[in-house]
């Protein structure tokens, strides 16, 4: 009893000290804004490239798009310029921001936009938006991109988390406090031994833990467990998720700009004979197909294509060079056949 009272008192004292520190060092006002804020700077790199290259087809996706699609090969096959936009670690929030703030804002508009995805990525707005992923989102977001903040961040927070972030200073400033408390302490030996700062540590990490340095099985396991989020019951429910996702906005922007949207579902090695695809995912794709038809969107589904054999994969997600050529040819054929319909 006595210890617990002392504990509560200590907690109040330490919270008070920490809150005072947060107010003095970081706060502009109170209560605090919930969730992170976008800064006003925005990258226009793809807008500039589109205007310069004037491609008829733009393909957008994450590292899987980079490993699976050869734009030069597609350009030769389709006899139309194809441009790639690949953002490693991208999710639907990032693709939405690039489409909204780089593709739709370009004076020149492509005829076709191919949006590459796997399974439920398009309707999982909370996928790849936290931590360092947020920094990438921020690069393509305007200050007033409230919808992106709402769907990607705020809707993913529990009411308790929102309350804590709004009113409890240590929670609101947790990233900064964590940085002071731990990261600076941890990095300090590097100064003494190597004269090395956080940037040098980060580049060492990037150099050493490049995907190619990882064991394929471990990499596959890591990638699969990082993507478990896409296969939760909630995320496999298309009807519920679609209205909370960026998909309707992406469709709307494409329609407004006379761009034919093609949703390209890629094949991954997550499921196998030993670990079959859940029935809910099949239902999800059927619903997505119906949604695409209703909205004049083309859905190309290579997820079960027998031509993409396991030998063509570098790991569970990315194709090798042979696979890349085959995939690019398959995609070009699909686009050609859709164009002739």
């Amino acid at each position, binding site marked *: 009893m006595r210890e617990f009272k*002392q*504990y509560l*008192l200590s907690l109040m004292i330490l919270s008070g000290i920490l809150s005072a520190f947060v107010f003095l060092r970081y706060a502009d006002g109170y209560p605090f804004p919930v969730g992170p804020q976008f800064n006003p700077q925005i990258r226009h790199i793809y807008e500039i490239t589109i205007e310069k290259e004037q491609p008829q087809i733009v393909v957008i996706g994450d590292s899987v798009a980079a490993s699976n699609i050869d734009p030069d090969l597609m350009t030769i096959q389709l006899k139309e310029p194809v441009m790639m936009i690949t953002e490693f670690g991208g999710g639907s929030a990032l693709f939405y921001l690039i489409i909204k703030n780089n593709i739709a804002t370009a004076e020149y508009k492509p005829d076709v936009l191919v949006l590459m995805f796997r399974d439920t990525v398009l309707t999982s707005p909370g996928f790849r938006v936290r931590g360092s992923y947020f920094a990438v989102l921020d690069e393509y977001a305007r200050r007033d991109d409230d919808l992106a903040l709402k769907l990607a961040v705020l809707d993913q927070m529990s009411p308790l988390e929102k309350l804590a972030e709004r009113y*409890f200073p240590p929670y609101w400033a947790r990233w900064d406090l*964590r940085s002071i408390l731990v990261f600076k*302490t941890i990095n*300090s*030996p590097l100064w003494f031994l*190597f004269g090395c700062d956080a940037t040098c540590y980060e580049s060492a990490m990037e150099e050493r833990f490049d995907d190619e340095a990882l064991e394929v099985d471990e990499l596959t396991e890591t990638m699969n467990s990082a993507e478990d989020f896409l296969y939760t019951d909630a995320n496999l429910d298309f009807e519920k998720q679609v209205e909370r996702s960026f998909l309707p906005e992406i469709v709307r922007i494409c329609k407004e700009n006379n761009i034919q949207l093609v949703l390209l579902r890629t094949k991954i090695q997550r499921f196998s004979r*030993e670990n079959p695809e859940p029935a809910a995912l099949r239902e999800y794709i059927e619903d997505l197909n119906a949604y695409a038809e209703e909205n004049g969107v083309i859905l190309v589904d290579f997820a079960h294509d027998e031509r993409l054999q396991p030998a063509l994969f570098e790991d569970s997600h990315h194709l090798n060079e042979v696979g890349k050529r085959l995939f690019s040819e398959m995609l070009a054929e699909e686009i050609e056949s859709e164009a002739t319909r």
Partner: protein
Amino acid sequence: MSFISLEFWAFFTVILLFHWLIRNRHFQNPWLLFASYIFYGWLTPWYAILLAASTLADFYIARRMKQPGSRRQIHLALSILLNVGVLAFFKYYNFFNTQVAEALTGAGFSVDWFFIKILLPAGMSFYTLRKLAYMIDVSRGLLEPSEDLVSFALFVSFFPQLVAGPIDRYQTLMPQIQETRIWQPRFFYSAWPLLVTGFFKKIVIADTVRSIVDRIFALGEPSVILVLAGALGFTLQILADFSAYTDLSRGLAQLLGFSTSENFNKPYLSLTPTDFWNRWHITLSTWLRDYIFFPVRRALLRRTKPLPGWLNQSIPPLVTMFVSGIWHGAELTFVVWGIYYGFLIAGYQLAGLGGNWKPANRFTGVLAWLVMITLVAFGWLIFRAPSLPWLSDLFLHSEWASGRSDLIIAVIVLSMTAVYALPLVIKHLLDEHYPRGFAYSMYYAALTLCIIIFTNSVTSDFIYFQF
């Protein structure tokens, strides 16, 4: 449901409230049993069905043992066959199925169903040991078989302990299940420090250290220095992770009015391998000691043709630790890790450094500790290695350090391990010198604030769920 999810705490709040509102054990026990099965079957209901079926089987087999003229050994053999058989099936099926299926396919049989991957139900390894201990004790006449199915089923499935222990014995838990429980404030006062420590160890220490340790052990061709640093990081991670689960489990049990066993007693201060296993995963160690080590040793000593003394000393730890390795999983790394400890225990015993050994002076003590912590960290390296070929490649072909990046990362891992181990060291010092008082309260308040600051990062499952 993970103990650190909001979902679990919503569930637990409801269970706790009703548990204390009921105020009668005849209703409390069915309520807790119901809660345990909901908890266990939350994501995969058939796990709960399997648990119920195996519980029923053991309940009735144990009662049959008591009947006059009953052949206890046959009933015990049946129960062991059932428990070990089911556990072995789930644990080792995936290890063999692909090879068997490929062999059958090669012989022209269609065996698609053989390729189906069967997941080990979480916690099965733990509740199997709990039931086996009960069955063996009943067969030995040390226990009277339970007459109360609900109480027995609750003993087997008590949800704070179901998924990763501690493996409390019937003698410890059953008397508490069968007594009337009335809310007392001391339950809460015993529980809160355990809960705070558990959350802190899991959220702040284990999951943060894990982020870099996992990367090192995922490297295809790591350098030796990187892996050694990673092994030290894992040494901290596994202690924090597993003891966090135990702390949370004990805290939850306390809130429900149960006092359960400690599973860790400063294991990294051990001076010998025997000492380590007396302090690490204590409930598993005592289980292995009572049901594997002692019977093997007795069997050896009773041989009509006695073996040489060194063999009598070496075989029991080797067999026991081999079983421990297999129990941890169907990976050769676990088996080698178990045998490694078997050899260490036997070697120390033969060198006269057995369970009762005490250092002659402080210098010897420090030296013994340094040797032991190195051996423990090396053991964890074997345990965490992705495969045996990976491990042998590391020592036979890998470079010491493949560049400046390796040195930088190794320093960071060591620095991280030291920083995150600090709260555990402080806790140890507080326990030694200020077991109560304001410093103690300040410590827990600081841990709570750290938990708040470190939440909202990705939190993974507890490592011991997989066993």
